């Protein structure tokens, strides 16, 4: 049966993609961010996951407001990266694992999570930047993208996100193939790009979230969506992806953690959680 090795969180800020493209990772601005990744590279090299499930939020490449799925799961053999309009270099396609995707979709819907299945899906920086960060040589395993809506309210509740993860965990662990899986929760932490409150970052709230997501994720389900917008900023709602990842893991131990302000307009958090 398939097993889950652990989960990894990271911010997926587009500027990180530019820093990678321009090879400026060692600059004083970037070093406090990129130093979080070598321990994760080592863990991935030692554990060699067969599949990566990448939970991210599309930012207006794969989906538009004409049809906006709350939860979408990729079911393709490969996923294209495409032009997002502001100059990130386009990456080669990412290999998928369509049979595994369909197992996950079957299981999730049986578990009463009504999924949008995608046999074609263009993946944006929310998906690609974490792949570049965790596998800088490009030698990543096949990937399954899962995108949740944070573009347009109503967005899922934090409880729904955690419950989604729990159902995802059951789905993965019921797959009869003997494979190992790592789950990424990407996005966040606090940031707000729009309005007179643009530039809002909240270290105290981010640090609380990074602590509780390890020790007591259920406590975070008490946060309302509007409270999340207020305390994490409009785009800090991407923390839902971390909750989705966390739900899939069960009991964990934290192997590494890093937090740095600012990367672009964002409080950037990185964590490696291993299933126990």
């Amino acid at each position, binding site marked *: 049966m398939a097993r889950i090795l652990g989960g990894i969180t990271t911010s997926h800020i587009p500027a990180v993609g530019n820093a990678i493209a321009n090879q400026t990772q060692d600059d004083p601005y970037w070093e406090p961010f990129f130093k979080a990744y070598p321990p994760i590279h080592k863990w991935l090299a030692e554990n060699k996951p067969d599949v990566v499930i990448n939970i991210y939020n599309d930012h*207006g490449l794969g989906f538009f407001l004409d049809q906006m799925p709350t939860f979408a799961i990729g079911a393709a053999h490969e996923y294209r990266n*495409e032009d*997002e*309009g502001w100059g990130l270099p386009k990456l080669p396609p990412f290999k998928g694992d369509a049979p595994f995707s369909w197992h996950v979709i079957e299981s999730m819907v049986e578990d009463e999570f009504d999924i949008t299945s995608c046999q074609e899906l263009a993946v944006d920086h929310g998906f690609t930047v974490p792949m570049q960060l965790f596998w800088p040589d490009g030698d990543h395993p096949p990937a399954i993208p899962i995108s949740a809506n944070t573009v347009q309210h109503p967005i899922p509740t934090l409880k729904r996100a955690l419950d989604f993860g729990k159902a995802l965990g059951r789905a993965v662990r019921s797959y009869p193939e003997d494979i190992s899986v790592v789950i990424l929760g990407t996005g966040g932490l606090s940031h707000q*790009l*729009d*309005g007179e409150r643009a530039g809002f970052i909240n270290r105290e709230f981010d640090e609380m979230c990074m602590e509780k997501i390890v020790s007591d994720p259920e406590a975070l389900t008490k946060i309302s969506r509007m409270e999340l*917008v207020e305390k994490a900023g409009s785009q800090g709602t991407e923390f839902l992806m971390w909750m989705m990842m966390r739900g899939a893991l069960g009991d964990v131990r934290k192997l590494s953690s890093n937090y740095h*302000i600012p990367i672009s*307009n964002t409080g950037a958090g990185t964590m490696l959680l291993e299933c126990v």
Partner: protein
Amino acid sequence: MDPHADIPGTTIFDGKMAMIGYALNKMCYSFNRAEAREAYLADPEAYFERFGLNEAQKQACRDKDVLAMIEAGGNIYYLAKFAGIYKLNMQDIGAQQTGVSPDAFREKLRKAGE
């Protein structure tokens, strides 16, 4: 009853805003494609007409006024693609919306880390 909180300086992009901004956001979504960006730059007014923007949306685009674009229903993820046409990054946009210079905005971000 409005289910959404009143958070100063923050527009909750919900169904109400999505209805107001659909044409503007659809135009900005088209800017994912290079040929759309070129067509826009060649004749912005014709491009506005093609997507059926209202006058407030057109004027906000002419002025490159991000707060006005948000008031006219723009969603920041799509507006980012509009900003990209003019090589404006998120610090430039943040500076414009908060009425400070890009350097002052970057300094504010840096200070949040102290």
